[in-house]
């Protein structure tokens, strides 16, 4: 079994135009690492989940929603403000941190949308369904999203 870890940090101006590009690049970068390790440890079933699509739709969506929140709600779409994204991955888990330069929000009392047919307010609900853990810093301008590899706690491993 090969132990590994990898990390990345990037910063960019708070513009919606960057969301798709950044989330696609980050997902494909994480997938490249995961697949590399998977192919080296192909005989060791315990190392990684067999399902390489684990970083597919749900991961893309979680990063997408976190970046959108940071840019639109955190930084109020002010391109002079920055959004920072970093991830850390090892054989056990993937952690993604997204931070903005806004004042944060009251994450302890936050409830996803009041009405089922509201036109906004689903981002955190979606992130919460795909990720195993979500941790906010105290002001609420930074979200840490954690996904455990192989032994996911959620029922939606394939999502």
């Amino acid at each position: 079994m090969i132990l590994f870890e990898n990390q990345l940090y990037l910063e960019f101006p708070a513009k919606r135009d960057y969301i798709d590009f950044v989330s696609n690049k980050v997902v494909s970068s994480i997938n490249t690492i995961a697949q590399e390790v998977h192919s080296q440890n192909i005989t060791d079933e315990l190392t990684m989940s067999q399902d390489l699509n684990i970083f597919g739709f749900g991961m893309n969506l979680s990063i997408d929603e976190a970046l959108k929140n940071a840019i639109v709600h955190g930084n109020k779409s002010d391109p002079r403000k920055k959004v920072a994204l970093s991830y850390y991955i090892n054989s056990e888990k993937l952690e993604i941190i997204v931070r903005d330069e806004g004042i944060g929000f009251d994450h302890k009392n936050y409830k996803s949308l009041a009405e089922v047919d509201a036109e906004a307010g689903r981002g955190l609900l979606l992130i919460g369904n795909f990720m195993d853990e979500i941790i906010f810093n105290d002001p609420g301008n930074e979200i840490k999203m954690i996904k455990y590899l192989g032994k996911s706690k959620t029922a939606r491993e394939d999502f």
Partner: protein
Amino acid sequence: MEITTKDCNDVKVVSFKGRIVYDTEEIVKRETEKLVKGPVKNLVFNFGELTYINSSGLGLLINVLKQVRAAKGDVKLSNLRPELMELFKITSLNSVFDISPDEETAVNKFIKK
């Protein structure tokens, strides 16, 4: 992002191909705006080739649905991929939209009325 339409009796079937992301949202907005203003208010959205949508895109769909229902029409969805179906379940939007496994079933729901 490609959006194509065809008429089936009094129903307009709209097929979505690609991803609804921030880059493609404007196209979707523009095309759905045309539909909302058009004469046919019975719409079937075939999502068979729609591979991605985020919360912003879901908001856009709800906006279209509300406008169409206000004009006594409806938007029915069909052919959702498993990931998309999962999204609609997580957000309980499967109770807001009428979702059919295939296009024909969705179209027939209008005709039977």
